[in-house]
């Protein structure tokens, strides 16, 4: 991948033209990979995923200092930006009750066919094999679209403890999934 901003030294007739060009370059570099990645998080809702990518690119453009980072770090950061936009969207959609509460891990159905179903089973298995403390904070934060503060209140433990358990739980989960060859 070529450096994102290295070829932006040229002269532009206006600030608007430069902004347009920078956004176009960001789309070219990251738009496709972001869309592929985010579609999985929107349940293959392509329109929603495209909106998320667009918003992510605009936010990235507003934080142009970060675009001096190495591409793999820019990518990781863009994913966090996109993730928060998806979560905001899920929260807005949460008036539809069946989308609020994900099923308990133990109750996940085993769907037929697709590789995607296999991945879900592998991820559910990995989650189950974590310690209770680690699984609990992952379920009560990310899987239910709750912040650390909200989960801490529900679990009756300090936010710092939730953060710490989440850190070790997510690291453990990553190791398990890497061993099983599940891609992100």
């Amino acid at each position, binding site marked *: *991948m070529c450096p994102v901003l290295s070829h932006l030294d040229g002269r532009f007739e206006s600030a608007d033209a430069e902004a347009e060009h920078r956004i176009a370059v960001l789309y070219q570099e990251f738009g*496709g*990979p972001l869309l*592929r*990645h985010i*579609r*999985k*998080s929107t*349940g*293959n809702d392509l329109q929603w995923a495209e909106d998320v990518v667009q918003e992510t690119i605009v936010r990235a453009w507003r934080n142009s200092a970060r675009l001096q*980072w190495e*591409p*793999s*770090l820019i*990518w*990781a*950061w863009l*994913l*966090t930006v996109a*993730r*928060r936009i*998806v*979560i905001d969207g899920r929260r807005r959609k949460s008036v539809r009750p069946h989308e609020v509460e*994900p099923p308990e*891990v133990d109750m*996940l159905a085993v*769907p037929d*066919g*697709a*590789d*995607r*179903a296999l*991945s*879900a089973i592998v*991820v*559910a298995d990995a*989650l189950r094999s974590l310690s209770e403390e680690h699984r609990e904070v*992952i379920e009560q*934060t*990310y*899987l239910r679209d*709750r*912040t*650390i*503060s909200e*989960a801490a209140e529900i679990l009756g433990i300090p936010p710092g403890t*939730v*953060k*710490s358990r*989440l*850190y070790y*739980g*997510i*690291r453990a*989960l*990553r190791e398990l*999934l890497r061993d099983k060859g*599940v*891609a*992100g």
Partner: protein
Amino acid sequence: MHEEVAAYALGVLDEEEIEAFERHLETCASCQQELKELAEVPGQLDELKHQPSASEDDPPMSMSR
């Protein structure tokens, strides 16, 4: 502060915490490295959030290594 990298990657920090962590991230090489390692875990967890779809699912593109 370092342990917040997981919560940051998952998008479950409050607004002020995000800003504080991103300031930290600017200068912390170990958190930058960990963020790259953890960045795609949320996408894996999303496998549990949606019913499988019949449409094609492109292979993920990993740029982290």
